[in-house]
């Protein structure tokens, strides 16, 4: 009887000692990651502040939002200690910089220079940056956008860290060699190849299409490769026409938009597109955008925007999906903290897929009988009419 009772106790204890080992291991690993610290704020090795210059399109709202949230993250992590005298409501990058430049924002860093990019002043900016680097007046460059990134990389020549964000395809545009890490000394660029796929998936779920038309001037700015690759997997054809210039690099806007509309007609009549995308930098006129969209809506062809919701607001394209500047900004800021703490930019991970920032034109959607379910309406960031 004693033996039987002993057996009873042993068997029961064996049962007790059974634990889900895998679950415990996963929990332990996760708790360890929580313990890892973020980059603690620090000064340069000589005790002075890190000096950062910014290269971006000045009057470009998504770029401004990105810069705002990056600065906000730096403040939350203690790199910037002063209050920020602006909010996130439709700020432009140069406005933010004007608030920050020359101000004492803490003991760790300061923003020293801002270069507003357009297609005509690239060489001048490169020259200025080169001069700043030679005179050791800046420690790091943050570039917002593909053109800004090319300028920053060319000017820097690997001498100081250059961080590039908001570039559609930094590999094709030559900013980095690879997507995982840059492979180029002192260069880092945010890479997100799933953005094109996600955009097409979302657009297709709203309005089913099989042949998407695009008009572009630069393959890398248009992210053409990414869209073509994503489209192939989804059974969508991309029909594209290349133009010699974008909307901001010409003074003869009438001629430019005539050509643009003519190209659209070609896409509709010859290529038989059933959806159209307004690519980045190709339209900067509201009236033109409105005219183009209405022309296509009459034929039952939905119009999407590649990035930015300026024209969505004015009532033109059906939907625009951009990368959420909030999340991209956090990724940029954490990378900047790492670089300022001593990590090498060329070794920092570049890949990050940010959630989409969705803007919808409800009037256009109703005109086209688009399948806008309530989940999408709740999830969207902005709804216009």
């Amino acid at each position, binding site marked *: *009887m004693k033996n*039987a*009772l002993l057996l*009873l*106790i042993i*068997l*029961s*204890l*064996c*049962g*007790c000692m*059974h*634990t*889900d080992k*895998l*679950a*415990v291991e*996963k*929990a*332990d690993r*996760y*708790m360890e990651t*929580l313990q890892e610290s973020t980059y603690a704020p620090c000064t340069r090795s000589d005790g002075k502040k890190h000096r950062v210059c910014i290269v971006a399109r000045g009057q470009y709202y998504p770029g401004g939002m990105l810069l705002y949230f990056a600065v906000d993250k730096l403040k939350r992590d203690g790199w910037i200690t002063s209050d920020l005298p602006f909010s996130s409501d439709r700020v432009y990058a140069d406005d933010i910089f004007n608030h920050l430049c020359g101000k004492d924002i803490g003991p760790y860093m300061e923003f020293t220079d801002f270069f507003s990019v357009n297609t005509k002043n690239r060489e001048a900016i490169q020259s200025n940056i080169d001069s700043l680097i030679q005179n050791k007046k800046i420690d790091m460059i943050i570039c917002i956008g593909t053109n800004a990134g090319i300028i920053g990389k060319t000017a820097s020549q690997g001498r100081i860290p250059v961080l590039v964000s908001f570039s559609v395809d930094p590999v094709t545009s030559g900013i980095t060699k690879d997507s995982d890490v840059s492979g180029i000394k002192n260069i880092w660029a945010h890479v997100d190849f*799933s*953005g094109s*796929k*996600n*955009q097409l*998936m*979302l657009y297709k*779920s709203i309005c089913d299409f099989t042949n998407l038309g695009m008009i572009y001037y630069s393959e890398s700015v248009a992210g053409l490769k990414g869209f073509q690759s994503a489209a192939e997997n989804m059974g969508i054809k991309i029909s594209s026409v290349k133009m010699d210039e974008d909307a901001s690099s010409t003074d003869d806007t009438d001629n430019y938009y005539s050509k643009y509309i003519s190209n659209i007609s070609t896409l509709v009549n010859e290529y038989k597109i059933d959806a159209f995308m307004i690519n980045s930098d190709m339209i900067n006129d509201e009236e033109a955008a409105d005219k183009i969209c209405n022309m296509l809506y009459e034929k039952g062809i939905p119009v999407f925007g590649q990035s930015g919701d300026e024209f969505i607001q004015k009532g033109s394209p059906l939907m625009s*999906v951009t990368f959420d500047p*909030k*999340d991209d900004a*956090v*990724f940029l800021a954490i990378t900047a903290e790492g670089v300022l703490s001593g990590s090498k930019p060329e070794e920092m991970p570049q890949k*990050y*897929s*940010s*959630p*989409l920032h*969705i803007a919808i034109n*409800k009037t256009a959607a109703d005109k086209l009988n688009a399948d806008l379910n*309530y*989940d*999408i*309406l*709740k*999830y*969207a*960031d*902005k*709804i*216009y*009419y």
Partner: protein
Amino acid sequence: MKKKFILVINILIILLSIIFTYGILMSSAANSCLELREQYFDFKTKSIAQRLETGIKAGLDINKYYGIDSLAERMAMYSNGHICAVVLNENNDPIASSLNIKREYIASVISLRSDSEAAFADLMNKRILSQPFKTENGYGHIALVYDKTYFSRIKFPHLIAYYKETLTNISNLALRDIVSDVKALHDKGLKADDIASMEPYFNSMLSDFGLIEGVAVGYDTDGVSAFTTDEGSFNVNIVINTEYIKKTYLWIFFTLVATLIICIMIVVEFVPVVKIINSKVYNNDVTNNIPIFIRSISFFVYLAVYTSLPYGAIIINSRGESILGLPVSVCASLPITLEAIALLVMLSVSPIIFNKTGIKKYTLTIGLCTVIPSFICFAFTNIYTIIICSVFLGITQGALKYLMNYLISICSENAEDISINYGQFNIGTLTGITVGGSLGSIIAADSGYTSVYIASAVIMLAIIATALICMPYEYINSLHNEHSLKKQYSYSAFLRLLMKSPGILVNMIFSVGVVAIALMYIVAFMPVALDINGLSPTVGTYGFLIYGIAGNYISGYLLLKAKALKRKTAAFIAMLTIAMAVLIIIPHINTITILAASLLAGIFDGYGAPSVTSALLNFKKIKKTDSSLILTGTSIIGGIGNVAAPIIYSMILYSDNVSVNLCLLFAFFLFSGVYILNMRD
């Protein structure tokens, strides 16, 4: 002195019953408040899961989404410190959590493995709610771990007032969330008309929120203002589901009534025990106490066993635990299956153990075989401890059966005594199962399924203590010396009999075997059916009560009437009864059909089982055979039936087509009845 002693004990028992009933009432009310809060948690986590799913369709990668941490924090903010949140990806890896999360909570959430359905699980005084969201490659989960005790606190005697306060609080929270959604839609630019057209959508979000009947939005609606335009105030209004509240009050009332019935039954069964204690204390004649003792001990032991035995399957299924790579549905049937096997094995080895240990140690062992595993199972609830505990509950029952058989055989002077004593044993068994199962349901409903094990352990401890005081060892030992030659079960002899007359085996299978399967309805079918169909454990309470009352009282009347019928006809009617029980639940398993089936199954237990056994034993061949062999045979075949039953019932209940499989079961019982009717000598 004698009368005072009895009076004091009886008063004590009544007081304990009142305290227990009060505790159950408080617990029911508290659990109703908890249920309300859990409805809100479910609603909240579903909203977040829906948003994540939409984001994932739009390309969100949750493994690299910086916003996921703040999402977890927002979920935990509802109540400071009493809720933790964790988010798992499709590989069951934690990717975000609230700041107050603990390592053991994360491990428990991962172990839950709730897959594509929302799931609840208990972790000591915490409860886990796991809500799935669809990703590209499977399901991630948002899990809340919250303090049950905190969210079910209630103050006596203002139970109703506190419940109403909780109602108001929860409905206000839900209203606040919908107002916030409406305002957000307006702020991002959606026009009021389009928001108003989303009213069905808002209602669909609240479809699982039992407390809330619906929501109305618009300018012409009363309620809380979400935003104001030139046209006026755009309001949101929530309509409370008064039927839900009435139903809750009704369930609390039913639980109270069931508890009172159980307490009365326990008091009634305990009163004779008091007399026995009194006799023992005052050294009175104990010979007349044996039948009472047989009935009482079988009642209390089965009460203790059945408080926990039916619920192992539910715990295993709810946690999705499995062993040896077996499907969860098969693993859920293992406790009852192994319990039946252990019972069978114990029946055959009991004589050896009994002869070696003597009655006192043997009785103590019966008790410890329940107490220790039950305590351990309560402290460390997992599939292994549940199975081990069930095995030892089977050992307990097997050992008890042998003890009862032994006492009956040595204490009975003649066939009439045997019949009376067996009758007392059967009544005690059935009543014990009834009360135990009902009690387990009440405890499960109030404190969670794992609590049934501590209840079993505590009850059995009390039984051991009482048995050690009450058992008339000297008298029994004196009888043992007089009746020293006892017939032993002989398996080999039974096998030789079968080889000579295989027809006996077939007859036994379609009578005793089928009866054994049918008798397992109450423990192996009903609780699992209730759990799978989302019915309250309180329904189980009444299922057990109805089963027991039908088995004890209605069947007694039927047995009297059946004396006029031929044995085979009576047996056929018995099989028809259990077939009808299955037929009732084929169209739909709900409260009414389960209770009706329990009624018929209880009648079968009390009337049908003896009728079928009687029909079998009436065959010439069987009458000519040694009774001990027949008893051996019925025990073996019956035991196999008991073992097979949980597997059969699990396969039916977890199958894709439950109704079709229930039809097959119905046909099987009906066929058995027809077979018995046409059995030839």
